[in-house]
């Protein structure tokens, strides 16, 4: 992509999100200059007010679609982007704000805002993939900066990114982290969670929260049954699956199946 001095144009777009994922790019302190040397920043409001017109070679999209305006704007961005990569739990699953998907959004608006009639929002917060074609998804809440660099790196050098979709447990085992669930009985989502965070929680003796969402072929039913045998009640199990990536299909279904008391 970067032949004969041509600098690919990079754009970073924001939808419903906390900005944490875009900040991961600014957090690449040591590598940032190298990145800026290899790409032209076309649009990145967190970093610069300067704007370069599209089309863009690489668009990084942060955030979920949660308003009618979002739903329309994402199509414009897709049209201007050669490669569109979604970054973070919001963009790939709907984010923490997708907790509203399980309830009536009007009730929330009425409870929170003095003038709910000013609020123009969709009933559900949904991932970008539900609206336009996505070329690659980078998981995490927030994303991991090494994975972001690896993705940019691979894209710029025309190779496949090394971003595996297997379990968090593999990160534990390669690092030598002692399994928190087996040694303490605390419920850990790691066996069904996408690797990539760099083993943050388990290596601090904290079970995995699931920030990276479901891994490939996640058997949440079996893990939920094990949580039950460890003494977790149905409500606790529901809450375990219903957090940062609550709307990811596998986790949504598992939490819903623990919604009602068992007959």
């Amino acid at each position, binding site marked *: 992509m970067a032949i004969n001095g041509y600098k690919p144009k990079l754009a970073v777009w924001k939808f419903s999100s906390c900005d944490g994922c875009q900040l991961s790019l600014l957090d690449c302190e040591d590598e940032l200059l190298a990145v800026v040397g290899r790409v032209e920043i076309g649009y990145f409001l967190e970093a610069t007010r300067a704007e370069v017109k599209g089309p863009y070679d690489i668009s990084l999209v942060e955030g979920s679609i949660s308003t009618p305006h979002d739903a329309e704007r994402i199509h414009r961005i897709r049209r201007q982007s050669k490669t569109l990569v979604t970054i973070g739990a919001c963009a790939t699953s709907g984010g923490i704000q997708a907790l509203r998907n399980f309830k009536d959004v009007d009730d929330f608006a009425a409870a929170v805002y003095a003038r709910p009639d000013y609020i123009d929002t969709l009933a559900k917060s949904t991932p970008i993939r539900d609206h336009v074609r996505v070329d690659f998804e980078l998981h995490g809440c927030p994303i991991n900066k090494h994975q972001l660099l690896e993705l940019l790196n691979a894209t710029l*050098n025309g190779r496949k990114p090394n971003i595996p979709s297997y379990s968090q447990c593999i990160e534990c085992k390669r690092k*030598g982290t002692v399994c928190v669930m087996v040694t303490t009985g605390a419920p850990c989502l790691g066996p069904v969670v996408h690797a990539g965070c760099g083993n943050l929680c388990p290596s601090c003796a904290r079970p995995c929260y699931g920030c990276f969402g479901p891994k490939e072929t996640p058997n949440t039913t079996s893990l939920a049954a094990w949580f039950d045998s460890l003494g977790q009640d149905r409500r606790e199990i529901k809450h375990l699956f219903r957090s940062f990536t609550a709307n990811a299909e596998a986790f949504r279904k598992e939490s819903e199946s623990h919604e009602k008391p068992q007959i």
Partner: protein
Amino acid sequence: MTPTPEYRKTRVVIDAAQLDVLIANLRAQGYEVIGPTVADGAIVYAPLSGAGELPAGVTDVQGPGSYRLEKNGTALFAHVVGPHAWKRYLYPPEQLLFRSVRQGRNLRINEELELKRYAFLGVRPCDIAAIRIHDKVFADGEYADPGYSARRQAAFIVAVNCTRPAATCFCASMNTGPRARDGFDLALTEFSDRGAPEFLVEVGSARGSQTLAKLKHRPAGEDDLKRADALLAAAARSMSRSMPSGIADAIEDHLEDAYWDKIAGRCINCANCTMVCPTCFCTTVEDVTDLSGDIAERWRKWDSCFNIDFSYIHGGSVRREASSRFRQWMRHKLDTWHDQFATSGCVGCGRCITWCPVGIDITEEARTLTKG
């Protein structure tokens, strides 16, 4: 046949203080001593600087999907295998194979060979069997792995026989333990039932013999030998788990069977079982570049047949179903491994049972298949 070397007949007894001397001597010889120590709620294998770091008076209580430590007695080796296996050191989870640097029109390639001399203290008999399996896989024939071979050749092995198996151990049925017959430089059997621990020492190599010579010891008496025999025989008898014989044939007879779908309902394909297994050796290769594309590195990382990409060939993955991945694991371990390496791929250490997050028990699954 070559006659048995004289040192093989050595039987002496040392006290616990000599372990400290042993560690110091090995370190003085340039070895990094790795052995069992308590960390993060488990007994792991980590660098040791003295015998004070051994898990004195700590034992492990293991079951399917469960591992806890308990205080008990004064023994230094009243535990068995834990979450780590020696492959961490002989065959590291992430290994740089080479780095290439582009300089103008030239490419320079550095092959990185990390050469560490390890002394492993507290290698259990099942793990000696596992290391020997890896020798066949990595250090045999024309395409021997240079990194593994070099680390393995340098490694000094102090075995510790098991007088107290865990509930998950089944080495007796795999003929790999609880006593090591060979494959060590020194082998210890701990006596801890009468006060301060003492160790019966056997010698397996000339360098083992030279190392032992520097330790204070007394010749073992007939009663010492009998005591060790009795402890190890009792340990073998106490094992509640076993691998059913005929498991290889049973798997061949059930290649297409509803059983695999049933077990796939429980298995999470998280790959923990293969990561902790001392004989599992599969890896993936990752090529990485820096942003400029001038520096490229090739890394080898532990991988597993439970991962979808593991069977990725042109057009997609061959084993997409969880059932086919579980079958691949069991069939390779317990069945086709015999054709490939003339041994079972399982040494009976029980790690996969303990560290499976949903407690799947390979012996129980094997029993289901042999009965069905």
